[in-house]
């Protein structure tokens, strides 16, 4: 059960912004038995890096993200952001959750404007920021609507806009584009990459779409099934800016193939794992 974490190669330049040190997170099962969801995971993210977390369903991606966000306290190990150990959530780390989690009593505009308002911005300034982001996610027409009147994909787009509104140093995104159609997704991906290039944001991005991971990331961290561990830290050496055309190149396809194989192995394990239960 206890294995040494795979050594993480540090790339040149930039300070370490997120340092996940030997983190184990466990949950209690019915019987009181402690089952680890994330097992001794260590990795580092440098300032301005774009990291994708890839792994089979239920491997602990969301749990790990929650630990960085400050919502779960590691059972063992610790997460250091900048120079401080994470003890709770903060506006320096914007989060797009796997569920939209919009405030049901606020309009789309008010949801997006919430962060800037809390940061002390005036109603007008916060509104302007919100409008800009809402336009970016293509929902200007629904700015005044309440969340429950939106479709699943629209809600998720609002959640993305909301997380961006604070211009956080770090963006933690949990399958943000999972509910979007191919084209909307491409638009959103390009929008995110533009924003990331403009601002000096560090991004930790959970996805189950291999193309997306390879297209967006500087490094793809592939997680194993069962108690999640990082089995591979794959540097994506494709030149930027990348566009949808990038996906046609041979290097892209090679990287994609590599990820796919890794994932397939892990998923296979996950499925086989169910039979010895």
């Amino acid at each position, binding site marked *: 059960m206890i294995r040494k974490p795979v050594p993480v190669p540090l790339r040149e330049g930039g300070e370490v912004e997120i340092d996940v040190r030997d983190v184990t997170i466990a949950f209690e099962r019915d019987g009181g038995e402690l089952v680890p969801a994330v097992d001794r995971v260590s990795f580092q993210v440098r300032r301005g890096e774009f990291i994708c977390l890839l792994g089979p369903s239920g491997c602990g991606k969301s749990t790990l993200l929650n630990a960085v*966000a*400050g*919502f779960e306290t590691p059972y063992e190990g610790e997460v250091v952001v900048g120079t401080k150990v994470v003890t*709770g*959530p*903060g*506006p320096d*780390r*914007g*989060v797009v*959750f796997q*569920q939209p*989690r*919009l*405030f*049901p*009593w606020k309009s789309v505009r008010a949801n997006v404007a*919430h*962060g800037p308002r*809390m*940061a002390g911005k005036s109603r007008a300034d916060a509104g302007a920021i919100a409008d800009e982001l809402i336009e970016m996610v293509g929902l200007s027409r629904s700015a005044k609507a*309440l*969340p*429950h009147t939106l479709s699943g994909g629209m809600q998720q787009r609002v959640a993305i806009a*909301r*997380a961006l*509104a*604070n211009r956080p140093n770090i963006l933690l995104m949990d399958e943000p584009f999972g509910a979007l159609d191919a084209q909307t997704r491409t638009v959103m991906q390009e929008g995110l990459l533009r924003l990331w290039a403009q601002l000096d944001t560090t991004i930790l991005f959970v996805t189950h779409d291999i193309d997306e991971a390879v297209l967006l990331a500087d490094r793809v961290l592939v997680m194993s099934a069962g108690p999640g561990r990082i089995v591979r830290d794959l540097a994506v050496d494709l030149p930027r800016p990348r566009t949808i055309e990038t996906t046609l190149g041979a290097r892209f396809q090679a990287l994609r193939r590599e990820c796919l194989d890794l994932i397939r192995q892990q998923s296979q394990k996950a499925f086989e794992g169910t039979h010895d239960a």
Partner: protein
Amino acid sequence: MADISTPAALSPRGAGALPAVGAKRRRSARLSQRINMAVGLVSIPLFLMVWQLIAQARIVNPILFPAPTEVARAAMEWVTSGLFVEDAVASLKRVATGYFVGSVVGVGCGLLTGRSAFFSGLLGPLFQVLRPIPPIAFVSIVILWFGLSEGGKVFLIVWGVFFTVWLSTHLGVQKVDQGLVRAAQMLGTPRRRLVGEVVLLSALPFIVVGLRTAVGISFYTLVAAELAGAFAGIFYRIQLAQQNMQTGLVFAGLAALGLISFIADRCFAMMAQRLVWWR
């Protein structure tokens, strides 16, 4: 109070050229809606009719159990004597003040104990012990502390309202959607604003239950309040009428109470619907 299986999508307004089947279904839906509304209107008259029949059958002593007509007569007399307005105003003032103070303090304490384990530990057991003590049992003590002022009477009402609202707020706060709290936290909502921005709104459906229950409770405690040296008030009048065997007036008093609370509750329900606009 709508049937919960009503779909969110709308029936058409105005009569376009609608396909036959859809229109038929919609017509029948509208019809059943009308029936339900009509039922709501006849509910109380129906009850009165049954009452009248029982009373007229004279199974029970009509002096102890008067017919609605007799009650109406007594009520008319009460109103024309001018005493009704006086009594109603006196009672309403007490209830309104007590209710307001009790619910504001109740929501406040509920947020405090619901959010903080420290305050929950400190105040929870105390509140739980005091909660069941009926105001009527300590009228004497209230008189001792407050004298015969209106303050004492209002305190008795506050007592009943407070514990009801406190409990439901406390429980509501503990049921707050943690996902929304997390979303607010990551957006940098400071701890003290978390309450106003998320906790309060998220617990609102529970608080509304407490507030509406407390409308009834406030009238329960009004009895105790008006036992304590009142000069006017609906219960004061009911009590006198009871002593004098004016059962018509007793029932008229109870009916007045029911009516006032009914109106209060209707207003409340309407307000609650606006308050909890997001469903």
